[in-house]
Every structure is written in structure tokens, then in C-alpha cells.
């Protein structure tokens, strides 16, 4: 048991990250409500964060000169900050769209059509 956890820790985090990413992607693609879509994007970003942390904790190349123990953490902070900014911009867009269209169903916004 001990060995299992020790030997397979990285995979566990990566698999969980992949599952969260996939769930988030599915939410982005399938849900109609723009707010849920935005939330799903947050989920995907967090899945990415988890992956960063996993690789930070279990580096692929030990003692690599390219990165240190903290480089993954630094990337995660950037992602969180960006996600916050993105969420605020996204919500602002949704409010603006709702004002003009009285709807936030993304499948009704198809003016990109050729």
C-alpha cells in the first residue's frame, strides 16, 4: 500500500487533472448557460493548475537546471490571477450580452456565422 502510493502518486494527480479538464471541456462545449460555461472554464484552469503542481512535486527530470521546486507553483499563481481577471471580463461580457439580447444562452449567439 505504501509502495503503491509512493510509486504512483504522480499518475493519480495527473489522472484526476485530466478528468477535471475533460469535465470542464465537456461543460464548455455542451452547456447552454454562459455562466456555467464560464464556471467550466474555471474548472479546466484548475485542472491545469493541479497538473502543474503534480509535475512540480514529481519532476520528470530530477535536478533539472530548467526549473526548481517552486516554478510550478509560480505558474499556478499566474493562472489563478489570470482566471480571476478572465472571470470578471467574462461576467461583464455576459451582462452586456444579456442587456442586448435578454438571454445568456450561448447557442443563440451565432452571429459569427459566415
Amino acid at each position: 500500500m505504501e509502495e503503491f502510493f509512493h510509486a504512483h502518486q504522480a499518475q493519480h494527480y495527473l489522472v484526476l487533472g485530466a478528468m477535471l479538464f475533460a469535465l470542464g471541456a465537456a461543460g464548455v462545449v455542451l452547456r447552454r448557460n454562459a455562466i456555467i460555461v464560464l464556471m467550466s472554464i474555471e474548472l479546466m484552469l484548475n485542472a491545469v493548475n493541479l497538473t502543474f503542481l503534480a509535475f512540480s512535486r514529481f519532476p520528470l527530470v530530477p535536478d533539472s537546471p530548467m526549473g526548481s521546486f517552486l516554478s510550478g507553483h509560480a505558474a499556478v499563481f499566474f493562472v489563478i490571477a489570470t482566471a480571476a481577471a478572465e472571470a470578471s471580463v467574462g461576467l461583464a461580457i455576459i451582462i452586456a450580452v444579456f442587456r442586448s439580447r435578454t438571454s445568456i444562452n450561448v447557442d443563440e449567439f451565432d452571429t459569427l456565422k459566415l
Partner: protein
Amino acid sequence: MEVTWLHLIPLLPLVGAAICGLVGKWIPKSWVYAVALASVLLSFLIGLRAFIGLGEQAPLFHELWFNWFSAGSLHVDMAFMFDRLSGALTLVVTGVGFLIHVYSVGYMEEDPGYWRYFSYLNLFIAAMLTLVLGDNLVAMFVGWEGVGLCSYLLIGFWFTDEEKAYAGRKAFVVNRIGDFGFLIGIFILFNQVGAVGFAQINSAALPLDVASMAALCLFVGATGKSAQLPLYIWLPDAMAGPTPVSALIHAATMVTAGVYMVARLSHLYVSAPGVMAVVAVVGVLTALFAACLALVQRDIKRVLAFSTCSQLGYMVAALGAGSAFAGFFHLGTHAFFKACLFLGSGAVIHGLHGEQDIQKMGGLRKYMPSTRTTFMIATIAITGVLPLSGFFSKDEILGQALHTRAFGFLTLGYSGPHLAFLGPLIYAVGSFTALLTSFYMWRCYFLTFSGEYRGPENVHPHESPSVMTVPLWILAALSVVGLVLGLPQAWVHGTWLQNWTWEHFTEGVFSRPRGGPPEEFSPYLGYGIALIVGWGGWASSRALYYKRGLAGDELLTARIHAVRRALANKLYVDELYDFIVVRPLWALARGLFRLVDATIIDGIFVNGIPALIAWVGAMARRFQNGDVQRYLAVTALGVAALLYVFLVRG
């Protein structure tokens, strides 16, 4: 003898045609006349000088103008040959052509398209001279097609009238059928002889089957151009053109091209006795058939058109009987009197403001004395009565046919006096046709000029201006003087006249039939029969029509209405062709149109390919629906696929 000026003869009218056609609309009318007339007159003078120059030292003039094209062993030269045969015809073409040009000045006076008309007329002369003077079959074919084109252009000269435009198309299409045979004949001869020059062809010894096949194919071309059975149908309709055109193209010159071609290749023809028999039979049947149709026609030009068919039949029969001389002689005299008749009918039509129906003529003797006299002279000439030119030419043909030894079977060739019954048969049919000819020509004359005027009150017949009557008088005079050309050698031997007979002109030009020359015969019995026949036609016609006018027609066919109706409807031949040829072709064309054009070309290519592209576009447009989520889904799937390929498979 090689010369360098021969090409001027066809070139001058060509230049005239170019000037009239290109700038004729903008230069004064008199300049157009001057150019058109002068070019033909100059050609005539050059031809006359050349013809006088022919003699012991120079049996023919030859000019290699330029090498037209060479491909492998085929060398085609634009080369001209002026011997007694082509020379005589050159004089007829340019001489009669010039007179008709002069006449046209009066006839086309009020037509706004006069410059176009003279351009076509000059172009025709140029093409006809190329046909006549060309020293090989390909050069001849150029002229052959050229005259066909001009014929089409001039028949449909008043092309805004749909009926006339149709007549032009009909003439062109029917001639194309004949031309196809002509082309095949050229191919056969080139394939077998290796050259297309008349000299080489006439001196080649061809096997019987080759000679027969080639001669037969070329004869198909001749039936088209010279309006013989079964391709004569275009000639009556060709009368839609202006009357001088009918005189020049459809009586005097172009329609004789077939006769000329066979005469030119007389050596080839006499080496195929079976074809000779075919030619003779076709000729004499055409003569009879067309004469029957001419009996009841009411359009003065149609009477003359069928008469032309009939006379061409005589010429062709003469060629078949191995007497190219007689056929060619009749060609010359016929050119004079038939041109005179046509121009006379043109003067009548002109004087009656476009009326062509002899029902509405009559009594014109009073109003048009010159036209009437010249028409009568030409009528006497065509009926073959002494002392006018048609007498000797027609009797020469019939006499030669009676005594010929030219015929053989198609497959066996000449090996003795085969088909001996054919000559007398042709003689009998030809003589009967001569009776019919005399009858219908006098009918036409009596109905037009005798009796009382039957036309409407408001039309006042008047004589034509002298620019039209002078050519009539000249042609009438030639119809008389033409007699001298035909005097038998025996009569004029030793006198100054002996150098002025047609027989002397064409000495040594034609080949003699395989079976040898016809046996010596005395012409006097034939002359007697011809005179009886000629005057008999006159007498019966006079008895019927002189007093009664058109009522004579009723009397003639009182008991046999069906026959008359059939004749008046041209024996329903047009309808027959319509049924046998035109309708199936229409059906075939419509079927092909539906299958090939509408289904394959339009359906598959023209509309099918754009439809395919539109379908692909419609499919591709589905990806471009503006739905961001779907874009994302596709992107995600794409990334997943790439990851699968590179991470798992790779």
C-alpha cells in the same frame, strides 16, 4: 507553256469583290458598278487573248502560282491550267457573267444592298474561275465550295424573308451532301494515284474497281452541284434569289460545274464503263423528270428552273454516253439561251413590279417588245429547232447516245458491246423529253406574252431600261450565232468556218470511250425527228394556250386531275424527302439533343460540376455555423486526435 499571268483571271474579280464588299457602302454607287464590271470585263479580255493564243505551239497555258501546302507525299499547288476546255468555259463564265453584271445594274437599281450584291457576284465569278482553271482536284474543290457559298449568299440575298433564307440553307445543305461524295472521290484518287492533279489522274492506269468507285463518288458531287436526281431539289427553291443570280449561277455557270468536272476527268470516266451507264441513266431520267414537272408550274422562274434541271440532264447523259464533247457543247449553248431566258423573265418580273405568276401575265407582247423578241429567240433555241444553237447541241447528244459504245457493267468493265439497248432507250427518252421541253417552253411563252393582259389593273407593265435589254439582245444573238459552233465538221470542212466550230475548239481534250468511237452514222434522220419533235411541241402548245391562256391547263389534264395535282406539287418529292430524310434526321437530332446535349453535357458537365461544388460547399458550411461551442468541440476533438496519434501511437 508556262506563263505568269493566268492567276489574274480569277484574282481580278476577287479584288473587285473585296473592294465592293469592304468599302462599297461608303463609295459612290457608280464606283461600285465600275469596279464590279471592270474586273469581270478585264478577266474576260485576258481569257479571250489567251484563248486566241492557244494553238499548235501552245496547246495549253499553265501557271504554278504558289505551292499551297505539302504534307508527306501530298503536294497541293495553287496552279492554273488554261486549255481549250477550261478556256472555253472561262469565256462563257466571264462573258455571260459580264452581261449579267451589266443587266444587274438595272435590275438592282433600287435595292439598298447593291454593293453587297455586286461583291457576292464578283466573288462568285472568282470562285467559278478557280473551279474552272484549277489544275488539280483540290484547287477545283476550293472553287467548288466557293461557288456553293456564293450561291447560298445570293439565294438568301433578301434574308429577312424567312422563306428565302430557308431556300438558301436548303441549297447549301443539299450541296454539302454532294460535296461529301466529291471529297471521298478526291481521297480515293489521292490514295490510289498519289497525286491530285488532273494530268496525273488522267494519265494513271487505275484498276476497274478503284476507277469506278472514285468516278461514282465524284459523280455524287456532280449530282449535287448540277442538280441531278436525286439531289436536284435545291434548284427550284434557289429561284428565291434575285433573277440575274438565277441566270448566272443557277442556269449558266455554277450548275454546269458538275458537267465540267466529269468532262475534265473524262479519262477516268471512260475507264469505268459501269459508271458511264449510271451517269447516262441518271442524266436522262433527270431530263425527263424535270421536264414533266415543268409542264404545270405557274411561277415563270420555276418553269425555267426545272427546264435548267432538264437541260443539265441532257448534258450529263451526253457525258455518260461517252460524248463529253456533246455535253460540253450543250453546256455552252445552254449558257447563252438559258441566261437569255432568265434575264428575260427578270425583265418581265421587273416590268410587273415583282409578279412571278404567269397566271397574272399575258399580252406582254405589246408592252415589252424587246423582252418578248429575245425571249422568243431563246425559246426557239432551247426547243432545238433549226436554225438556232440548241438544235445541234441537243441532236449531237441524242445522236451520240443512240450510237454509243461506252456502256458496260459496273463490276465487269468493258468487254464488248454490253447494254446495247441502253443507247436507243436514252435516245427515245431524250427525244420524248425534247417534245416536252418544246411544249412547256412554248406554254410559258404563250402564257406570258400572248393573249390579253390578265394582271391587276393597277400594275402597268413597262419595258426595261436599255441597260437590261442590251444584254438580252447580245445573249439572244449568241443563241443564234452559237449555231455555227455546232456545225458538223463534215459540213464546214475546207471553209473558213472550220476553225470556229466547238468541235475544233475542243479537239483532243476529251478521252474516247473504251468501246471505241460511235459507229459512223448519218445525222439526217435524227435531225428530221428533232425537227418534228420541236415543231410538234410548238404546235400542240399553241393549240392549247395561244387562245385559251391558262384554260389550256384545264383542257390538258381535264380527265387526270390527280396527275396534274401531283405534277403541280412536284410529284411530292419534297414531301418524300421530308419523310425519308428530314424527319428521321430531326428525330435523331432531337434524340441526340436530349441525350447528349441536355443530359450529358448540360446535365453532367454544365450543371453537374457546379452542383457538386455547391454540395461540397453546403457540407463545408456546416462547420461554419457561428456556434462557438461547436467550434470548440471540433477543436477539442482535433486536439484529442492529435494527442492520440502523437502520444499513444507515436
